[in-house]
């Protein structure tokens, strides 16, 4: 039997990170891991949720081919990425504890593309963050959330919009918290995930390989900055929520949606929480309600993403002009 102990006295490498607007105190015995997390280093403490992460890196071999396995009950979530790569999330204490191999500790892709999004996805509800299934773009700090089912083309539309001048925040999951009376939307510096047919629209993907994403889909994973040379913003203040409906007719159409309809959609897309997390669920309601009171629209378009992006760009421009008039 192997036994790993997450012992604070051995976790001497420490840092404070900012993840989705929250403060994360990380402690580990592996300075290399802190190096990977450097892009998340916090410049100054933010008045927001806090959680902690304790990672004990051990000498047992890691196994690269194990599929991750997740389960949860009450206030706990458990995850295994192999026999010796183990995580437990305590949502009551707002704490992640892990014992992992050096192989996993030094896997930059694992931390940036998988673990950081997973951590905030699991703990978010307890630190005032709502993981919302939407893309997010920003223009001068004003945020545009683009919701829609998987495969609707959110990522492709996001890249096309960013090429027109929007700042890219996220293409799949956006992390939303309350700051004072407003909501703030955050991305996690994760790569953009594009389905294989995206190569028809983006020559930048030529010579890149599709890979298997964590959800099992085949996809291109590309850096917004180095692959597409588009501008990235860490956060913005959402102003519009657009439901992208690609199955409608040929012409672009914008139909305004009531807050009740928007709230029903948000409810249908947010993870249920057990009774043990009732307070977290209650706090989450405020964020959901604030999202639903944004300017909400259904955007129907079935043409190429470049055309959809131009329509959406023009729509947002009209809204901005209308607001300033």
């Amino acid at each position: 039997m192997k036994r790993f102990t997450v012992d604070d006295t051995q976790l001497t490498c420490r840092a404070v990170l900012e993840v989705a607007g929250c403060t994360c105190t990380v402690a580990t015995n592996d300075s290399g891991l802190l190096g990977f997390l450097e892009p998340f280093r916090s410049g100054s403490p933010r008045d927001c949720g806090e959680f902690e992460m304790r990672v004990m890196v051990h000498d047992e071999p890691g196994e690269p081919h194990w599929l991750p396995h997740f389960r949860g009950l009450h206030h706990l979530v458990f995850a295994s990425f192999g026999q010796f790569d183990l995580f437990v999330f305590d949502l009551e204490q707002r704490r992640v504890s892990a014992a992992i191999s050096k192989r996993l500790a030094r896997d930059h892709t694992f931390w940036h593309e998988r673990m950081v999004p997973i951590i905030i996805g699991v703990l978010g509800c307890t630190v005032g963050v709502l993981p919302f299934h939407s893309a997010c773009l920003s223009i001068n700090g004003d945020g545009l959330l683009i919701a829609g089912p998987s495969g609707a083309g959110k990522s492709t539309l996001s890249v096309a919009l960013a090429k027109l001048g929007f700042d890219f925040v996220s293409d799949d999951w956006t992390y939303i918290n309350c700051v004072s009376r407003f909501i703030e939307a955050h991305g996690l510096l994760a790569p953009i995930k594009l389905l294989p047919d995206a190569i028809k629209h983006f020559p930048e993907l030529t010579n890149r390989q599709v890979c298997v994403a964590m959800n099992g889909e085949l996809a291109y994973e590309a850096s917004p900055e180095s692959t597409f040379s588009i501008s990235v913003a860490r956060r913005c203040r959402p102003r519009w929520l657009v439901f992208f409906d690609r199955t409608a007719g040929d012409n672009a159409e914008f139909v305004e949606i009531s807050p009740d309809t928007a709230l029903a959609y948000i409810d249908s897309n947010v993870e249920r929480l057990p009774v043990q997390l009732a307070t977290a669920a209650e706090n989450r309601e405020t964020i959901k309600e604030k999202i639903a009171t944004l300017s909400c629209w259904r955007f129907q378009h079935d043409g190429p993403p470049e055309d959809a992006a131009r329509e959406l760009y023009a729509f947002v421009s009209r809204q901005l002009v209308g607001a300033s008039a």
Partner: protein
Amino acid sequence: MNTMAAMVPDLLRRFASTQYHSRFSNDAVVTLATNNKHLLAEFEARSEQIGEAFRTFGAGWVWRLVQDEDAPYDSDEPTILDAGSITMLFLGTGTMVAVDWIRREVLGFAATDVSSGRLFQLIIGIAKEHEPFPSIQAAGQSLLKRSIV
């Protein structure tokens, strides 16, 4: 647009049914809920051992154990993760059982190939090897209250 909240998939199986219940009035007073009536019977029959192993950590334990038909059974070698107030047992990738010493809860999922007897022995083993209060509470202290080096 879909308005059915029930359509959100329960990826973590947090809402797995545990329809069989029992309360053991042993030294630790344990309430057990599970979806496996054979496991319930096995644990009921050995409730005295549970009491002996867990009484050091107080009374009023809540146990919830789910037999997980989708859990892989890829190793029989147990691995323990001691994380302060929580001890985790992993058996391969699919069997995961947590003991929260402060909340007095035993929560977990077991692959169908793990027998009730084996699971029982492993959980009892965790309690027998664990140190009692007050060091558990000390281990559960938050990093957030400490200074950062």
